[in-house]
């Protein structure tokens, strides 16, 4: 029977200097999967910034393991001590946890689901890997649908965007004024733009003061991150702009240290001011919320892993069940053939009734043995049961 093998390393086991040397791009992942799948095996490579993992389905587990380790060691020999090896149920559970974002640096992050999907698409997959990857994607989606693990922001920029949504609702068509252009403010602006907002002005605090004052009454969000030594936007300037806004709300995000925006702006009616400390506290709280949700997500993933285990274990007995059913069908048809002289006198509907009754007898007789064999397979007695059935019904003799 095909077994599942996982060889890989992740942020839990290897620092970034090591991980980056075994990272695979799209083409490399596809080529490596194809190479590992030679000889009737199946393989898929999951490579992200946090992990490189090789999933192989093979009959010869030891050889598959050796080949996978060799493949990663050929990229970077030093990675070998940082590799983990998991089999069957444990490997599947790991993949399900990865897809659910439970093994990520930020619990519940959403990007990993797409990366698992890509690994599946680029892999050389068959029955086993198809099943385990599909179920992993299902588990990932289920966790995100049934828990709040992925809903809260996990970065300062995402928190700023979430706060903007709390103020404005939809951000479609909202305009942003960027004061300075630091990395974090760019990320925040990108986050807002991905929700439909538009950048109306990127301004340098020192040279474009007049333009800032001109633009301020029209924009909805101000993101500040200049290197200025003092306050760039005073409360009086904002208050003046507010008078021309006719009650429209203004969200101001100050990502600079020292702060660019006068703290008194927060006191103005219709103004919502957040500084970097406030945003970081919000992110810290939402991350702890994600960790609380992770317990519920673990339970969902465990159920999916158990389902996979049951299915995988049933593969032990599926050939025996198929042979048994084929044998029974063969006997039924042979007996009907023998009775052809008698059945020939029956009309079409009577013949169909005889066919149906005999098929029903066969099905009912085989139902319980089939169920019991599948149950035994889950309890690890599947091979024994399959052998017994083969022996009792002479299935191997037929095949010979």
């Amino acid at each position, binding site marked *: 029977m095909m077994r599942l093998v996982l060889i890989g390393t992740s942020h839990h086991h290897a620092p970034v200097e090591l991980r980056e040397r075994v990272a695979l791009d799209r083409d490399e992942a596809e080529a490596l999967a194809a190479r590992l799948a030679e000889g009737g095996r199946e393989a898929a490579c999951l490579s992200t910034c946090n992990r490189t993992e090789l999933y192989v389905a093979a009959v010869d587990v030891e050889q598959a393991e050796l080949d996978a380790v060799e493949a990663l060691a050929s990229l970077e020999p030093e990675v070998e001590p940082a590799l983990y090896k998991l089999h069957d149920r444990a490997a599947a559970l790991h993949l399900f946890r990865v897809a659910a974002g439970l093994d990520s640096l930020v619990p519940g992050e959403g990007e990993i689901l797409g990366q698992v999907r890509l690994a599946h698409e680029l892999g050389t997959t068959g029955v086993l890997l198809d099943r385990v990857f599909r179920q992993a994607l299902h588990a990932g989606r289920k966790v995100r649908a049934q828990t709040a693990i992925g809903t*809260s*922001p996990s970065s300062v920029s995402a*928190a700023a965007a*979430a*706060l903007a*949504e*709390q*103020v*404005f*609702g939809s951000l479609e068509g909202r305009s942003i004024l960027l004061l300075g252009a630091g990395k974090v403010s760019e990320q925040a602006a990108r986050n807002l733009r991905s929700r439909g907002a538009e950048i109306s002005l990127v301004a340098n605090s020192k040279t474009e003061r007049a333009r800032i004052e001109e633009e301020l009454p029209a924009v909805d969000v101000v993101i500040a991150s200049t290197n200025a030594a003092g306050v760039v936007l005073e409360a009086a300037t904002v208050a003046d702009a507010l008078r021309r806004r*006719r*009650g*429209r*709300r203004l969200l101001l995000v100050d990502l600079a240290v020292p702060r660019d925006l006068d703290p008194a702006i*927060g006191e103005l*009616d*219709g103004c*919502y001011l*957040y500084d970097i400390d*406030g945003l970081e*506290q*919000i992110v*810290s*709280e*939402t991350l702890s*919320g994600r960790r609380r949700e992770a317990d519920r997500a673990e339970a969902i993933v465990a159920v999916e892993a158990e389902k996979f285990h049951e299915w995988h274990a049933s593969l032990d007995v599926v050939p025996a069940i198929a042979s048994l059913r084929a044998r029974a069908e063969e006997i039924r048809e042979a007996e009907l053939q023998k009775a052809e002289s008698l059945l020939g006198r029956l009309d079409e509907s009577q013949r169909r009734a005889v066919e149906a009754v005999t098929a029903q007898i066969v099905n009912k007789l085989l139902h319980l043995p089939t169920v019991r064999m599948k149950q035994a397979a889950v309890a690890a007695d599947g091979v024994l049961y399959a052998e017994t059935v083969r022996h009792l019904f002479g299935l191997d003799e037929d095949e010979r």
Partner: protein
Amino acid sequence: LAELLFWPALLLYGEAAVGYFGDVRRPGGAGRAATWGVRLGWLAQTALLAVQAARDDGFPWGTWASSLSLFVWLVVSAYLIWGCRRRYRLLGLVVMPLAVALLVIARAGGGTGGGTASHYSNLFLVVHVGLVLAAFAGFTLAAALSALYIWQERRLKASPATILRRQVPALATLDSLALRTVAWSVPLLTLGVAVGLVRLVARGDRLDAVIAATAATWVVWCAYLGLRLVGGWAGRRAAYLALAGFVLVVVVRLALPATHFA
């Protein structure tokens, strides 16, 4: 039968009110149970009103107490339009305790039983009471939206670390929903009052205190609309004005109907 229907309605509304409090402490199951409490309680109260209508000969909500029961039903009906959405659960924290309290008062005044055949039976009056109550229900909902706005705005100003833990409608959404609700309710009140005045003139009756208070309510809500649509009012100021308008609604509903209905 009316008795049998009153208690489930009250208990389910009560369960919803308690559930919404529970949802504030720990969002999730309590909020869902509360929403079902509102739905099932509303069904029970609908059946109660249907029984009253079927039993009585004439307009069955002709006393201040029975009209209060109808008012509760209208408020809960209006709340159900949004209240079942997760983000609007907090609105139930304002609406449902109010519904429970008013239903208990209606019961104490004998407004939830049967056998109160009314001398008010002409169509004009039915339209008058129905429209005024529907408008008041809308104002109540607008006040609840405004209260939620003020609460959420304070949170956004204070910016606690837990600000994103609870799903609450955006400020802009609350503001615009309150405006839309009032924009629907003011014409209803205008029409309802006009119908009442026609009857007043036709019968040669005099103005009473409730009519004066209702007129004041109408003025405040018209001012709300005017200031918002023309004066550029929005946000906190408008929300406080809505709450002031609601105080008049409470005065009209609770303090003065005894004189008007008498």
